[in-house]
């Protein structure tokens, strides 16, 4: 009872500084966990999202742009390919599946992507998982003005089966640039937690022949998403298209391109992590300063405890344990900050990219960070604890007669 009582009373007596210090630790802990988890999860999510296809074929240009445009529905297309190019790659013996896409329109900011029904019937967006429609829906017919809407886009655009819409020209929403064609929603996709959720899917002919689009490009495609029969075939295609040809680009392998992207922006992670580490150090320092500054006020109490028979080691332990408690309190509150930040960041990432982060996912950092933070605080508490350890009892209990 003694040690917990001493710690509890001390925390109560210095409630304000305890709260402020615990708050700064919570902030540090929450930030550290958020930075780490956003980095880890987004990287994993982006890389796993790109597993559905082995390669993306597009106009000559950046491989990264092709992947971002073709798979993540970000960025503009670097250019078009002729339908014959699509047919060529589709019939290539190394290619198992080839899905053409055409982009260039939007529905109130949500990208409209023209494709073929095979995307939904043949392709697994993740291992063992095929696209599914919500009850009552059906895939669009290739030649009709119909649409299948991703779950997130449907929710945001408040679209349901049977609703109609007129697309807007361009990838950015401008209400003045609306097309004349009207499309009918025939299906809503079940959530896939991939960028497909934020896309409005229509038949590829719908995009190609949309009013206002260049009639000369009426059979062009923006990119072709490719599944290979064997991984080694990718290197052969890479040689043929990228090194020997000069008209098209094959982005292969998709996963490696994404990993390369994260490698390029890893400095940003490191800066964020550095900031979080600094905040953690400052928080541990504030525990030290907070307890140390209150030591003169506590010294009489400590001397009384000593006079009552408390050992020096116990006093030392009580101060260290108090610091650790402040750390643990802050770390616990840090989870609140973590969940709030993570939920906010996840929502932004989902809205911007369609990639879904799992806010409640577990990770070693979620117990390691609070543990290290508590240990750091206990370490910070050792300095004032040493001062407490050395409190001269008789002098502190003056007056002497």
């Amino acid at each position, binding site marked *: 009872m003694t040690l917990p009582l001493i710690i509890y009373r001390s925390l109560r007596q210095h409630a304000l500084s305890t709260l402020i210090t615990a708050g700064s630790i919570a902030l540090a802990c929450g930030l550290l966990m958020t930075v780490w988890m956003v980095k880890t999860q987004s990287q994993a999510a982006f890389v796993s999202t790109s597993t559905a296809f082995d390669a993306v074929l597009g106009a000559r240009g950046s491989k990264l742009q092709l992947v971002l445009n073709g798979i993540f529905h970000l960025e503009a297309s670097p250019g078009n390919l002729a339908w014959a190019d699509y047919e060529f790659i589709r019939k290539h013996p190394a290619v198992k599946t080839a899905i053409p896409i055409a982009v260039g329109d939007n529905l109130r900011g949500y990208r409209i992507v023209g494709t073929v029904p095979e995307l939904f019937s043949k392709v697994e967006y993740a291992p063992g998982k095929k696209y599914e429609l919500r009850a009552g829906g059906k895939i669009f017919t290739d030649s009709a003005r119909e649409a299948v809407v991703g779950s997130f886009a449907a929710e945001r655009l408040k679209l349901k089966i049977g609703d109609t819409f007129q697309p807007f020209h361009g990838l950015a929403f401008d209400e003045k640039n609306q097309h004349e064609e009207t499309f009918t929603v025939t299906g809503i996709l079940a959530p896939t937690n991939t960028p497909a959720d934020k896309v409005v899917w229509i038949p590829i002919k719908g995009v190609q022949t949309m009013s206002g689009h260049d009639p000369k490009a009426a059979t062009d495609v923006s990119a072709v998403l490719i599944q290979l029969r064997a991984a080694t075939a990718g290197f052969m295609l890479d040689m043929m298209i990228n090194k020997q040809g000069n008209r098209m680009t094959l982005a292969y392998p998709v996963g490696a391109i994404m990993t390369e992207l994260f490698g390029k922006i890893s400095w940003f992670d490191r800066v964020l992590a550095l900031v979080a580490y600094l905040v953690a150090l400052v928080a541990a320092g504030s525990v030290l300063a907070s307890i140390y500054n209150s030591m003169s006020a506590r010294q009489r109490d400590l001397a009384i405890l000593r006079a009552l028979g408390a050992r020096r080691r116990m006093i030392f332990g009580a101060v260290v344990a108090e610091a650790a408690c402040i750390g643990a309190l802050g770390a616990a509150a840090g989870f609140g900050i973590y969940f709030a930040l993570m939920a906010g960041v996840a929502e932004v990432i989902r809205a911007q990219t369609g990639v879904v982060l799992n806010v409640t996912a577990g990770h070693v950092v979620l117990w390691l960070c609070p543990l290290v933070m508590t240990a750091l605080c206990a370490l910070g508490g050792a300095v004032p604890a040493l001062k407490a350890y050395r409190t001269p009892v*008789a002098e502190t209990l003056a*007056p002497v*007669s």
Partner: protein
Amino acid sequence: MLNVVDLTKSFTAPDGGRVEIVRVPQFQIAAGEQRALRGESGSGKTTFLHLIAGILAADGGRAEIDGVDMAALPEAKRDRLRAEKLGYIFQTFNLLQGYTVLENVLLGMSFGPRGVDRAHAIEMLGRVGLAHRLRHFPRQLSTGQQQRVAVARALANRPKLVLADEPTGNLDRRSSKDALALIREVCRENCAALLLVSHDDGVLAQFDGIQDFARINDARKGAAV
């Protein structure tokens, strides 16, 4: 119970020299005995009590409590002996301001050999008339009530030797008399020895065989205080 032999203590003066405060060649108290020492402020009597209690380390000599020489023990063992054998009523109460009345008494017990005995702590506080103030903090009590908490805390552990340093110095005459009667009664019940130091003739008058501290303390014999 208490046997003091050649106990000495000196401090460094502002001019760098050593000033001897305590040099007691011989002093004894038997178990259950109650003794009072008269001493003026600055006579070294609190230092003497601190040496007996092991709060201060002696320069030399012995202070044997129940046969164990407090002066010869290292600090950790002095702490343990103090918690096991002694009850100390401080002149300034030395209550823990952030703790309730009950917690003050319980904490005092927690370092002792019997550990925390909540029922006994409440009983002791009842005996000093504070049963209705268990959850109050010292600042919410009058000076006399605080003094009574200090008495209850010192006696709750059933110590073998009670040291009382001006235990009624802050009380009015009537409260002083009541507090003193309580201390003596509980000491008698527990067969505890009592060593009380005071400069208050009203308090001292209640003891037989009062000794002047100046007469047993060679260091201050004849010194102006």
